[in-house]
């Protein structure tokens, strides 16, 4: 039964990332009294936008996937009737991969994508068909059988051409933070299907529109969103949630607590080391976060000829050795990494570019940010946009430290825990079995596959709680 006492919440959600907002919307819509506490002054987590000198940039996430007819992101947009309001656009092609020998397009028309790839790699034509068919297969059980394989092992099973394998993996290194030899096949396939085959969707005007629309609906459903509100402690009694404590000291009683923030912080700081079992504590200490990113934001003076395909994500790599690229990225070696991901926005005057980068402290990035930024611009100018530097009106960057500072993700990790084999579906990171009424949602649940992944988890977490409460799961 829900608590009739007005001062007690049914659920407190820590963090207004996409997963927290999605979860909160379903709970509030079903009639629960829900509070979302967000430490930043706007909702969205990594899915926010900001404006400088008239240019609007997406801070980190710049598109989302799984928006086809049965896609999970489309489902939640429809459930909350925000799909029409958002004006969602999809560039065509959504992705372009460029290497010294090839230019590969991912068109909205999947058949066209497959056909073009078969023309480029005729010796692999049947393998390409088989692989795409496997990835796009919607049988809910089909992916469970690849759980102990790496994405490289999966690709090896289908293809012989190493360059083709690298081409199909490079975007995943850029958006999932791992080379195919380290990434779990499950994560690789999810990213491939939701980002490459059904990705690239953007709300017109910037990604901030998505969390803003969700936050608005959440409030309409009776939810309470508190911004600039840091949670300091999660309180439990007899292994059962009792509520949270805010930074300013006030205790907020609640039956459920759902953490949409960093998992290390959730367990070690908010809950406290003494509240978790020794083996789970050791497990957390042993886990590796995903790599962070260096994000470059450029405002340019005019649309000029080299800027083709506005909206499309361009993945460039001057080589095919992705293990070497990953090692270089971990050292902050921009030349060794070689490539980058680049997007020219629909307005044709805004560009963002991104490369994986190591977490270092504030001092390191204060000293190195400018050098890194200039060297990044040089590389884009050299390989993709000649004369770029002559057209820049505004330039700035987010370092891994910046990403940490705004979101408090451990070490500025971009995708939660690294998506390696040993870190896939680790028990107790979604629903800690040792505390009643306590859930995690978002990319730290060991299922970090971008926005569609956190949407899935947010929806699923809400369904679990509603089932416990015997409340109907309301849509529309």
């Amino acid at each position, binding site marked *: 039964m829900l608590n009739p006492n007005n001062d007690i919440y049914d659920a407190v959600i820590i963090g207004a990332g996409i997963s927290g907002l999605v979860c909160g919307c379903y709970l509030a819509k079903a009639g629960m009294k829900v509070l979302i506490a967000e430490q930043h002054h706007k909702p969205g987590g990594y899915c926010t936008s900001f404006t400088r000198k008239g240019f609007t940039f997406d801070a980190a996430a710049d598109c989302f996937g799984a928006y086809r007819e049965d896609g999970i992101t489309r489902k939640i947009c429809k459930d909350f009737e925000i799909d029409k309001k958002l004006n969602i656009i999809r560039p065509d092609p959504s992705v372009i991969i460029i290497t010294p020998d090839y230019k590969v397009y991912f068109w909205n028309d999947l058949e066209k994508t497959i056909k073009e790839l078969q023309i480029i790699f005729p010796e692999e034509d049947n393998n390409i068909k088989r692989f795409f068919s496997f990835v796009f297969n919607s049988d*809910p*059980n089909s992916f*469970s059988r690849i*759980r102990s394989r790496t994405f490289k092992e999966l690709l090896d099973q289908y293809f012989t051409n190493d360059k083709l394998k690298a081409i199909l993996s490079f975007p995943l290194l850029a958006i999932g933070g791992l080379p195919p030899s380290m990434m779990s096949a499950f994560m690789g396939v999810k990213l491939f299907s939701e980002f490459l085959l059904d990705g690239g969707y953007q709300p017109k005007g910037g990604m901030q529109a998505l969390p803003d629309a969700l936050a608005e609906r959440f409030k309409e459903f009776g939810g309470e969103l508190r911004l600039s509100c840091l949670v300091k402690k999660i309180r439990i009694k007899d292994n059962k949630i009792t509520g949270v404590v805010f930074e300013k000291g006030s205790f907020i009683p609640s039956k459920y607590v759902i953490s949409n923030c960093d998992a290390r912080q959730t367990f070690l700081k908010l809950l406290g080391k003494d509240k978790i079992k020794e083996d789970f504590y050791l497990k957390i200490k042993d886990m590796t976060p995903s790599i962070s990113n260096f994000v470059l934001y450029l405002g340019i003076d005019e649309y000029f000829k080299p800027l083709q395909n506005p909206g499309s994500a361009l993945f460039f790599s001057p080589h095919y050795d992705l293990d070497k690229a990953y090692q270089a990225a971990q050292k902050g070696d921009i030349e060794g990494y070689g490539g980058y991901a680049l997007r020219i926005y629909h307005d044709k005057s805004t560009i963002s570019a991104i490369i994986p980068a190591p977490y270092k402290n504030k001092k390191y990035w204060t000293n190195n940010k400018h050098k890194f930024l200039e060297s990044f611009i040089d590389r884009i100018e050299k390989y993709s946009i000649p004369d770029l530097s002559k057209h820049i009106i505004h330039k700035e960057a987010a370092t891994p430290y910046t990403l940490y500072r705004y979101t408090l993700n451990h070490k500025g990790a971009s995708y939660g825990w690294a998506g390696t084999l040993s870190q896939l579906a680790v028990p107790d990171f*979604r629903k800690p*079995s040792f505390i009643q009424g306590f859930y995690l949602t978002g990319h730290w649940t060991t299922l970090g596959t971008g926005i569609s992944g956190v949407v899935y988890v947010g929806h699923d977490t809400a369904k*679990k709680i509603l*089932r416990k409460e015997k409340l109907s799961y309301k849509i529309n």
Partner: protein
Amino acid sequence: MSDNVENEIISIIADVSGFDEEEIKPDTNLQNELEIDSIKAIEITVAIEKKFKVSVRDEDVPKILTLSDAVNLVNQLLNQKGRDA
């Protein structure tokens, strides 16, 4: 032993699926009745491996269609482990 195995697996499936333990019967279809998709099938498998210190072969994961399939598989793996030890 077998009852313990069954109870432990029910508790794992309840946590992963969000369904109450009472709703999980030996022949309940995990996919159709408890909404177990590929992510949750992996979560259940990993939790079973951790709990019983066994290792489930990949090709066996999609064969787990009901609670009794999971119980049988775990008993089989535990017997095998006992024999190997």
